[in-house]
C-alpha cells in the first residue's frame, strides 16, 4: 500500500471520493452572469448580470466560510468575472484568507498593469479561454476579436513574468485538428495547456450537434492525450474516453456532489459546473451557508450513494468510463443510468433520447453584442485563396484579356 500519492491510484481513495468528502476539492464559483461576450457554447448561458447576484459582503462571508472549511482554492468563473467591479478586491480578500484563486477569463481586461499585479500575487492562477488556434476557428465560436484579445492577454501575462498560467481550450469538431498548435501557443507563452470537454449545458445544448467531436476525432483526442500525458491538464474532463484503453491521468470518476460542486452568482449550489439546472440544485448559500448545503443537501446525499450503472453495467468498459458524464446525458435527454452520448463503444446509438430538458435559467444577451460570434455557418472554413470563391475570378480576367 502506498501511504502518499500525488495522484491516487484508482483504488481505495476513489471509494472515499465516491462517498463524498467533508469539503469539496474542486469548487467552481461563477461570480457573475454578466459577460462582455456571447460565446455560442456558454455553459451558463451568460450575458446579462442577475440583479440578485451576491453582494460584496456576501462574497467575503462566503470566502470566510471557505477558509473555515479549508477549501484551499476555488475556480472562479462566470460570465466574465473581471466585469464585476469588486472582482480584484475579492481576489485579494480570498488570497489574504488562505483561499487560493484560479480564475477563467476571456482576456479582454488582462492589461499589462493587471498582468503585473497578477504575477506579483501568490496563490493566484489565471486561465485564458481560447477555442481555436487560429482566429478563423476561434472567432465563430467565441466572438469577433476574441482570438486577438486572448493572445494579447497571454502576451501580457508572459511579459509580466507570470509562470504556468493556463491556456484553456474546449475541444470541438472544429479544433481537434489543432491540438499541436494549441500546445505550441501555450509553450510559447510559458503556459500550460488545459483541454476540456464540450458539454451540452447552457447554450452548449444548442450547438452540441454541430460542434461535439465526431467518433474518429474522439479517438484522435484520446491518442493525443495519452501521448502528451500529464503535461496537458484536462480537469478530469475526458474519463468517458478511458473506455478506448488505458485510463487517462486523473481520478476518472464523476465528482459531482462528491468532490466537485458549483456556486452560481446568486448563491445557488449545483452538483457540478456543467449542471446548472433545477434538477441538480442542492440549495443556496443564502439559506444556512455553504457548509450546510455541502454536508446535508438531499441531492448531494443521494449522489454519494452507490450509483447504478443501468444498461452500462454489462459493458466491459464500464469500470473505465463509469457510464460517462451525468450532465451530458441529462442535457441531451438521455437516461442518467445509460451510456454517455459520446460513448466510445457506440452504445448511445441504441438509446432513444427523450426531449431535451427545458433550461431553468437564461441570462443570454438580448440586444447586440460588440464582440458577437462571427456570423458564419459553423463548420464552413474560409477559402484558402481569394480567387477560389471571389466573384472576380481568374476566368473573368481571362475573358477580359480576350480569352474564352
Amino acid at each position, binding site marked *: *500500500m*502506498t*501511504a*502518499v*500519492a*500525488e495522484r*491516487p491510484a484508482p483504488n*481505495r*481513495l476513489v471509494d*472515499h471520493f465516491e*462517498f463524498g*468528502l*467533508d*469539503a469539496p*476539492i474542486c469548487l467552481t464559483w461563477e461570480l457573475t452572469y454578466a459577460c462582455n461576450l456571447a460565446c455560442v457554447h456558454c455553459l451558463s448561458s451568460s450575458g446579462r448580470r442577475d440583479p440578485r447576484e451576491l453582494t460584496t459582503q456576501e462574497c467575503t462571508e462566503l470566502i470566510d466560510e471557505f477558509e473555515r472549511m*479549508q477549501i*484551499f*482554492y476555488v475556480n472562479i468563473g462566470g460570465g466574465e468575472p473581471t466585469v464585476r467591479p469588486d472582482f480584484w478586491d475579492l481576489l485579494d480578500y480570498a488570497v489574504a484568507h*488562505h483561499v*487560493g484563486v484560479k480564475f477563467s477569463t476571456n482576456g479582454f481586461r488582462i492589461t499589462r498593469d493587471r498582468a503585473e499585479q497578477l504575477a506579483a500575487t*501568490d*496563490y493566484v*492562477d489565471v486561465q485564458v479561454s481560447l477555442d481555436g488556434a487560429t482566429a478563423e476557428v476561434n472567432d465563430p465560436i467565441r466572438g469577433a476579436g476574441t482570438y486577438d484579445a486572448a493572445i494579447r492577454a497571454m502576451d501580457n501575462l508572459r511579459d509580466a513574468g507570470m509562470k504556468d498560467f493556463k491556456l484553456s481550450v474546449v475541444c470541438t469538431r472544429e479544433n481537434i485538428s489543432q491540438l499541436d498548435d494549441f500546445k505550441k501557443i501555450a509553450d510559447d507563452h510559458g503556459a500550460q495547456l488545459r483541454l476540456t470537454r464540450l458539454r451540452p449545458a447552457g447554450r452548449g445544448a444548442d450547438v452540441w450537434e454541430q460542434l461535439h467531436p465526431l467518433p474518429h476525432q474522439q479517438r484522435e483526442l484520446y491518442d493525443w492525450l495519452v501521448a502528451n500525458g500529464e503535461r496537458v491538464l484536462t480537469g478530469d474532463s475526458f474519463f468517458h474516453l478511458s473506455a478506448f484503453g488505458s485510463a487517462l491521468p486523473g481520478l476518472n470518476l464523476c465528482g459531482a456532489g462528491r468532490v466537485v460542486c458549483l456556486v452560481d452568482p446568486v448563491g445557488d449550489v449545483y452538483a457540478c459546473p456543467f449542471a446548472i439546472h433545477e434538477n441538480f440544485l442542492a440549495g443556496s448559500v443564502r439559506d444556512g451557508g455553504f457548509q450546510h448545503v455541502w454536508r446535508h443537501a438531499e441531492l448531494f446525499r443521494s449522489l454519494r450513494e452507490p450509483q447504478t450503472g443501468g444498461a452500462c453495467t454489462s459493458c466491459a468498459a464500464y469500470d473505465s468510463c463509469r457510464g460517462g458524464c451525468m450532465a451530458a446525458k441529462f442535457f441531451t435527454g438521455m437516461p442518467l443510468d445509460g451510456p454517455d452520448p459520446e460513448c466510445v463503444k457506440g452504445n448511445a446509438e441504441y438509446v432513444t433520447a427523450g426531449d431535451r430538458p427545458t433550461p431553468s435559467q437564461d441570462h443570454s444577451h438580448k440586444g447586440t453584442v460588440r464582440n458577437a460570434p462571427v456570423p458564419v455557418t459553423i463548420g464552413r472554413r474560409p477559402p484558402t485563396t481569394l480567387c477560389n470563391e471571389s466573384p472576380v475570378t481568374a476566368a473573368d480576367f481571362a475573358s477580359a484579356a480576350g480569352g474564352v
Partner: protein
Amino acid sequence: MLDQAWTLSDSVALRPEPFGALAYDFTTRRLSFLKDPGLVDVVRQLREHADVTETLDAVGVPSSDQPRFRAALQRLADQHMIVPRSPQ
C-alpha cells in the same frame, strides 16, 4: 533522515478527511493525499519530537508498519511538504 528533527512546512495545510487528510502546499499549489489517519498523526507530531523514530514510537506505530511510514515520510520530504527543523 531518521535521526533528524522535522516539521510540517509552514506553507502546507492539512485538512482532515475520513481517509486521512488532504495536504495542500500553498506555495507549489500541489495537493497530496495522506491516505492513512496514522500518517496524519505522525506528520502533525513531528515537531514535538527529536527525530522520526521517536515520533513513530510516540504515535504508537507498530514496528511492522514503520518501514512504509518511513517511506511515506521520505516522499513528503522529497516534495518539501515536511522540512528539517533546527533542534531546540
